[in-house]
């Protein structure tokens, strides 16, 4: 969706402010926000792409005026309420009032943290059909404005690029975020010249490489 998360090419946000490597969190609550988000994700009630979609559905003004861990916790609350893990009256009261519902996976215990983080979540999948494109092919990205989740950024829609790598078959975020299963698709690394994306005044020595799923692409003769 064309939400505030899709930031590539926007202007006016000011300079980037670097920070030393030693700074990991800026407040105690950020640590808890990270850990609660991961622990709730481990219950298996929603895929990561569903979480991304809920975050990008925050109203743009709210998204842009929230820190990243605030965005995470606001979205987590929406997910917990929509999945029925927390009842609205519990959130109002600030305490548990109803029994827990059963979840796909059990509560994450301390002993399971290390194995879970070490295992990760592999996203690669077998794709039933052969890849349509090969390295060197010229492709054009779709012009589309879905109200649903997509990983085709606005700045790269309707642009011509070149396939530089076939990354493999992966779960398709556009489907997974909306309860339509993994729907595996081929994913390609596509190179776009800076001037194709941004116009003739752009640095001629810039290119941008974007990982794009096959349904976003059409062949250019």
């Amino acid at each position, binding site marked *: 969706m064309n939400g505030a*998360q899709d*930031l590539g*090419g*926007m*202007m006016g*946000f000011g300079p*980037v*402010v*670097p*920070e030393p490597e030693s*700074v*990991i969190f800026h*407040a*105690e*609550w*950020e*640590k*808890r*926000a990270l*850990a*609660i988000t*991961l*622990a709730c994700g481990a*219950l298996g009630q929603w895929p990561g792409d569903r979480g*991304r979609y809920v975050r*990008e559905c925050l109203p743009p003004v709210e998204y*842009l*005026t929230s*820190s*990243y861990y605030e*965005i995470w*916790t606001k979205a*987590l609350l929406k997910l917990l309420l929509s999945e029925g*893990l*927390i009842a609205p009256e519990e959130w109002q009261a*600030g305490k*548990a009032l109803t029994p827990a519902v059963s979840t796909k996976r059990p509560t*994450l215990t*301390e002993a399971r*943290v*290390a194995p*879970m*983080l070490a295992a*990760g979540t592999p996203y*690669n999948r077998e794709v039933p059909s052969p890849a349509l494109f090969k390295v060197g092919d010229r492709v054009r990205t779709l012009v589309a404005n879905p109200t649903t989740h997509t*990983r085709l*950024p606005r700045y790269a829609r309707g642009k011509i690029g070149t396939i530089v790598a076939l*990354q493999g078959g*992966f779960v398709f*975020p556009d489907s997974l975020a909306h309860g339509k299963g993994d729907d595996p698709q081929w994913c390609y690394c596509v190179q776009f010249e800076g001037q194709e*994306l*941004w116009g003739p005044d752009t640095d001629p*020595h*810039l290119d*941008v*490489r*974007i*990982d*794009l*799923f096959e349904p976003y692409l059409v062949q250019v003769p």
Partner: protein
Amino acid sequence: MPFSGHHVEMNHSHTHDDHHHDDHDHGSELSEAALRVRALETILTEKGYIDPAALDAIIETYETKVGPRNGARVVAKAWTDPAYKARLLADATSAIAELGYSGRQGEHMRVVENTPDLHNMVVCTLCSCYPWTVLGLPPVWYKSTPYRSRSVIDPRGVLKDFGIELPAEMRIRVWDSTAEMRYLVLPMQPEGTSALNEAQLAALVTRDSMIGTGFPLASGTAR
């Protein structure tokens, strides 16, 4: 919302002079964000969906175990071991796993090499995708609106914010992490460091040099 707060932290304001407000644990000073997280943890714990000891273990992992020193070890090994470097560029996920680094947000790794003619830089314009297994949690600027908006249209301008200027003729390549591949930049080895061992070289490798917003330190400087 059970609580109303007074403090909205701006996503694009990173001077953070006022961070200490968030650290206060007495009620009137707690930010709306801190109150929301506290309420979530209370309810979720009472219902048995989360275990506070597991939360502590997650935090400890990313504060003390999984961070950019992992990536620095990968880079230093690539600088000293040509066969390892070849494996790293061909199949980064496996080569990084050889050093024991694998898992969450590092499931599908790619390593991209800087050369005298090419500078690589990594961003996630749509969210905050970042190679956790080798770099830890992303720094706040990586997730910020200035970095995510400008990196793809004006990367040289972003690099100036980091105090870096590339030669005008050098190609700059920006990798937008839109899918499940996670990118690590292999920076060029600083000149005059061929006599250093792997551990000494790793100490020169900065986090930012592995994102593409910095260079490794010169020999003889401390990180």
